[in-house]
């Protein structure tokens, strides 16, 4: 069976249609629930709107970051530093980028697709996504709720788990040879 790996996504047209279908389904759910619980739907819309507003700076940051990467980084560089042959430095770079990135996970998918198209390995992409669980700005909040020792130990396990995940994904999501 052929895996859909290597070049993710199968054509811009299909992908953009999929996005609209998804949005259509969510809007349909809103419409159905609205007939039974109109007050809650208004609350949901308010919460979603506020979330969108809060994320605007993150969206801007990601777009500028993607533009900068497009401008400065060549596919050869991505392949060298984040490709399958990049070794330990590739894993550590993906880990550091994930920890330092901010905003919700879904705004980084487009950026990762660009990098993967330029040669980033699946394992490094997975490490990037997982290591985002280490949220430096939120550590004081975690310490407040769960204590210092819990927070320190958990961050260590999250880093280990992100590398374990990367290794597994590298084996399970290897591109199909042409």
């Amino acid at each position, binding site marked *: 069976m052929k895996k859909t790996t290597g070049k*993710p996504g199968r054509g811009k047209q299909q992908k953009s249609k999929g996005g609209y279908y998804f949005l259509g389904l969510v809007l349909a759910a809103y419409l159905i629930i609205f007939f039974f619980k109109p007050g809650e739907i208004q609350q949901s819309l308010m919460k979603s709107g506020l979330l969108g507003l809060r994320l605007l700076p993150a969206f801007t940051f990601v777009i500028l970051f993607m533009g900068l990467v497009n401008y400065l980084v060549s596919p050869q560089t991505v392949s060298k530093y984040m490709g399958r042959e990049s070794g330990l430095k590739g894993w550590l770079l993906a880990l550091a980028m994930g920890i330092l990135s901010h905003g919700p996970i879904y705004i980084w*998918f487009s950026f990762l697709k660009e990098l993967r198209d330029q040669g980033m390995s699946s394992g490094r992409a997975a490490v990037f996504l997982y290591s985002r669980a280490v949220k430096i700005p939120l550590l004081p909040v975690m310490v407040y709720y769960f204590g210092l020792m819990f927070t320190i130990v958990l961050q260590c396990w999250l880093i280990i788990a992100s590398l374990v995940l990367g290794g597994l994904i590298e084996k399970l999501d290897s591109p199909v040879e042409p």
Partner: protein
Amino acid sequence: MNDKTQAPAKGRRSAADALIKALKAFASMIPQLVGVMLLIGLFQTFVTSDMIASFFSGSILRDSIVGSLVGSISGGNPVTSYIIGGELIAKHVSLVAVTAFIVAWVTVGVIQLQIEASFLGNHFAVIRNTICFFLAIAVALANTLTLELLK
């Protein structure tokens, strides 16, 4: 194609072109982003911490699986997961279950699975999320065990 001759040409792409390419790539995400944000709004309105607490039974293994499951289908700012986690601990839910919940919250994304699959491939999205679901349980167990050993 010769890599060495291609690299400088890529490097000479104008800043405006690079930004337009980034804008187009990001714009293609907008319907999915709006869908995900609307889903998160629904979740935050309809799912309360009392509702989440009712899923836990007291069995460590079962609760860690339930914690990972609930965290996987939840979404929103991680701070929300810390607050709910704090409330769950106050309601005597085990630390393993709460840890699995907060780890799965940030590492597994059922709500955004569609958007992840469309950008990074179905295979990648499904196996990544499946492994992360089990890793949340493993991390929770390892974390709690380590804390016990350090006491």
